[in-house]
């Protein structure tokens, strides 16, 4: 039973993924409204030669803050889970 459900889930998802990939725009010729603006204006607006750095820290700065937060969460989580539990009472 589990096998059947597993195969069903796998085939459904892979069908979506592959057919999505097949219907995509031709490789190498993407539409680029948003990116053209960034490529054209990043030097003037942020002063950064590296356009990716301008996107990472300026245009999409909140994503980077989120990413730093994810790292912080992971470090907190790792240190929380690997903490010394000896002092702990018998509560947990």
């Amino acid at each position, binding site marked *: 039973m589990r096998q059947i459900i597993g195969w069903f889930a796998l085939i459904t998802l892979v069908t979506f993924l592959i057919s999505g990939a097949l219907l995509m725009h031709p490789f190498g010729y993407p539409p680029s409204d948003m990116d053209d603006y960034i490529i054209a204006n990043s*030097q*003037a*607006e*942020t*002063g*950064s*030669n*590296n356009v*990716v*750095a*301008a996107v*990472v*820290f*300026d245009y999409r*700065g*909140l994503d*980077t*803050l989120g*990413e*730093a*937060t994810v*790292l*912080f969460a*992971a*470090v907190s989580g*790792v*240190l929380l889970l*690997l*903490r*010394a539990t*000896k*002092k702990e009472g018998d509560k947990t």
Partner: protein
Amino acid sequence: MLSKIVRTVSNQLIVFILIFGLYIIMHGHITPGGGFQGGAVIASGVVMLLVAFGSSDIKKALRERRLSVLESSGALIFIGVAFAGIGTVFFYNFLVGTPIFGEIPPIGSNSGNVWTGGVIPLMNLSVGLKVLAGLSAIVLAMALFSSGEEMEE
């Protein structure tokens, strides 16, 4: 702990790894790289030391607590720089046009100038600090746990 050759070589190598990591962090806004990449390079150096010297020796030099403080301060500097722009808008690049990192490079292909980028170099630096501390803390904690030692709380 590995053999003396490995320890000696890694002891010398860590300096170069640190310098290379710092270069990647500080030139993040003009060449490929940035805070995350440079931080990861330095953290890999820490992992190398961990492998060469063993977790108990490293523990004496690199406290989990200190790394955690370092990471928190990196994150706080980052969000602080973002908050500093709130006179206009959160994350506003307020340093463009000021003497600190505020120069605007010639538009189009140019040879690169470190004093550009506004807040981007500062953010790269804080993120680099955060990533090197964070990744080192994760690896150190895992190494200590698997070798059966407890971290100090």
